[in-house]
């Protein structure tokens, strides 16, 4: 697999670390135990296109939001995490 880091360009899988589904949003402070349980444990486990958190730890250390098809591994988009930084080389 190769992921096109918005900052570094296309890189090989070994430079990245996977965290998982990027859809669940961390509940705001004061959320109930059930809400946090849902965030931490329950997954849609999509068979198809899925937004995911990947870390370019073997490169620029940016967290990326990657849309990838779990049936084919095809990657359709890569966006930097909100706080990764402003400048991009590859749009």
């Amino acid at each position, binding site marked *: 697999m190769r992921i096109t880091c918005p900052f570094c360009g296309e890189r090989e899988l070994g430079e990245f670390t996977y965290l*998982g589904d990027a859809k669940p949003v961390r509940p705001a402070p004061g959320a109930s135990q059930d809400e946090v349980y849902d965030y*931490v444990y329950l997954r*849609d486990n999509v*068979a198809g296109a899925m937004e995911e958190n990947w870390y370019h730890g073997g490169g620029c250390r940016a967290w990326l939001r990657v849309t990838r098809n779990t049936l084919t591994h095809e990657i359709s988009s890569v966006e930097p995490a909100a706080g990764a930084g402003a400048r991009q080389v590859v749009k």
Partner: protein
Amino acid sequence: MKYSIFSLARAALSGHKTWQRTWRDATPKDRYDVVIIGGGGHGLATAWFLASEFGIKNVAVLEKGWIGSGNAGRNTTIIRSNYGLPGNTGFYELSMKLWERMEQDLNYNAMVSQRGVINLYHSDAQRDAYARRGNTMRINGIDAELLDLAAVKKMIPFLNFDNARFPVQGGLLQRRGGTARHDAVVWGYAHAASELGVDIIQNCEVTGFVRDANGKVTGVETSRGRIGAGKVGMAVAGSSSRVAAMAGLRLPIESHVLQAFVSEAIKPLIPGVMTFGAGHFYVSQSDKGGLVFGGDIDGYNSYAQRGNMPVMEDVCEGGMALMPMIGRVRLLRQWGGIMDMSMDGSPIIDKTPIDGLYLNAGWCYGGFKATPGSGFVFAHLLARDEAHKEAARFRLDRFRTGAVIDEKGQGAQPNLH
């Protein structure tokens, strides 16, 4: 038809023309007492135990492809009961005991071979963790031995003891561990269940659940029509989330790809099962002679049933680090299975919040070795509506309550289990 050397010899006289189908090719009936979704080892074992132990014979096993086409047919065939946490320990030992009588139970040789499983350790901390685990096993009546370096050298002299990056210091040995011929387990359960009247229905994909006014599941829609059911059990590890979604359930499960590898057949080299403690590599040698080995999951969600090179390389690096004699042995085939990775690395066998729907899922790496035990306790749950005592901790709500069973201590991060 009874299988034995005598029946073989008799059949030989007729040029083997007298053999019957190993399991009946059943056509779906309108309704069964229990419908099991998933014709893998777990589903078939469940059906067989329902019929043989719990007297429920009006059972169908629905398989969307051919039986054993999921993880039952693509694992590394290891059986063991060397788990360290309450919940797992007793359950996997129950399973091991069932392995030990499987062939006589089923009249099918699944080549259950207890040649031993050794987990090698490479540091004091690892030794201590294995000591804790081995003592748990012993306290639960399971065989376990902690070997020091000298004992390992004697048992497996061909490991790299001389110039290893992380030298082997010893190992935790379970002599009763070993391997079984994975496909034969599937066929054996199918054969024996079919003999007891269970309908095994291949090429029958479940496309939805039939619910009554109260929401209770009363059957399934399939590619071969609607089939009514008193109870429906899901044993579809790899597809659990997809099938559960048809009933509106979200699960604490992710699907990941686990690769496995086999080498060309060579004369006997490796006695039992070995796991490398300083990398991701475990290996055994099949009766046919191939080294069967694997490592970690690739680490990303996947239903593709194939992996990528980094893990393949990582696994082979582990193999070479452990035993550099395999350098000239050739890798023959690689494949991938879809792992139901649960959020704590342990399985779920429980009723679901939906009446009539029962769940057997989340097997992570542990599914094959659990096959008979899983079938037994799932049959128990389906027959009696209460958990078998050795599966009582495999609850679906344990993530909500915090009573997780996390052998690796990695938390809600499935790709690290």
